[in-house]
């Protein structure tokens, strides 16, 4: 049995390599907000209140492009609706927690944290304090995101744009799924999702981000039926 502290540290260590892409992205995110002419305090408030990289950028871009608040808020909701899927996966491991702890831990569930903690949970089901791993990944992400976006807001885009560091985001997710390329069923699901996301990219409110996983999960359920 690992202690709470050991699990928390393991979570921190498991997510820390992703900071290589998260920190530059956070800096860009903060800098864009100020460049687009928004109040720096409000730009930072997003990191604290919304706490979601892609959705913060979309929110800024939509509002600066003249979209209504309603459209911007709806888009953020739809982009983040993928968390419903993460929550459904994680609920199995977090079941023993009190309702209040579930409410608290939910705030720090992010893509990379979900991915790394889920990998850990699958291998260590019997650990008593599993959720400390998720707190470790989530808090690491939270602290880095706050610092990165704040530095972008204060210092401006000191990351040269020519470096194209936004490209580090797809790379970080490649690192997450690449080992599943060994399994043909997973490859089919990934390709389905990827192609759907390109096909539906222009769907309203950025809904490709939830339409394509739903299609891919439908394909996954068909594959499971074939397997039997």
């Amino acid at each position, binding site marked *: 049995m690992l202690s709470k502290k050991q699990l928390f540290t393991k979570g921190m260590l498991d997510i820390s*390599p992703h900071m*290589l892409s998260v920190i530059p992205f956070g800096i860009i995110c903060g800098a864009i907000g100020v460049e687009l002419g*928004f109040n720096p305090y*409000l730009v930072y*408030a997003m990191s604290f*209140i*919304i*706490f979601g990289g892609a*959705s913060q950028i979309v*929110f800024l871009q939509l*509002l600066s492009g003249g979209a209504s*608040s309603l459209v*911007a*808020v709806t888009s*953020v909701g739809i982009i983040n609706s*993928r*968390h419903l*899927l*993460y*929550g*459904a*996966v*994680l*609920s*199995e491991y977090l079941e023993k927690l009190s309702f209040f702890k*579930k409410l608290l831990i*939910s*705030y720090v*569930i992010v*893509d990379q944290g979900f*991915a790394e903690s*889920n990998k850990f949970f699958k291998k260590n089901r019997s650990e008593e304090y599993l959720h400390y791993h998720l707190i470790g990944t989530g808090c690491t992400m939270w602290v880095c995101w706050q610092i990165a976006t704040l530095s972008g807001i204060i210092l401006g885009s000191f990351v040269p744009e020519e470096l*194209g*560091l936004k*490209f*580090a*985001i*797809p*790379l*970080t*997710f*490649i*690192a*997450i799924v*690449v080992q599943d*390329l060994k399994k043909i069923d*997973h490859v089919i699901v*990934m390709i*389905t*999702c990827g*192609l759907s*996301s*390109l096909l539906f*990219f222009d769907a309203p409110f950025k809904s490709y*981000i939830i339409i394509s*996983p739903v299609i*891919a*999960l439908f394909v*996954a*359920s068909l594959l499971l039926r074939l397997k039997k």
Partner: protein
Amino acid sequence: MSLMSIIFAGILTYFTRMTMVALISREMLGDKVKAVLEYVPSAVFPAIIFPGIFINDYGTFIEMNDPKIFGALVAVIVGYFSKNIIATILAGLVSYWFLIFVIFS
């Protein structure tokens, strides 16, 4: 951008994170649903990866000789064999930079 709109967006985002964690219990999900949920990472992350590579900042498709495609392929190969996140990200970035700064410059 008003603080109110940020708060609404934040509440909505929080609900997407909290709903399933707080309201779903093990008995509510059958074995079939759980088997499908095993695929969630593979079914969600390509929706972040593919547009990040194939669609540019202006929302249009990139050319087939775009350096990002090469960078992504290198990242996939290095990631597959190294099983190392930092190596994967760096391999993708460095090969991408090599193309844009050395070859195409």
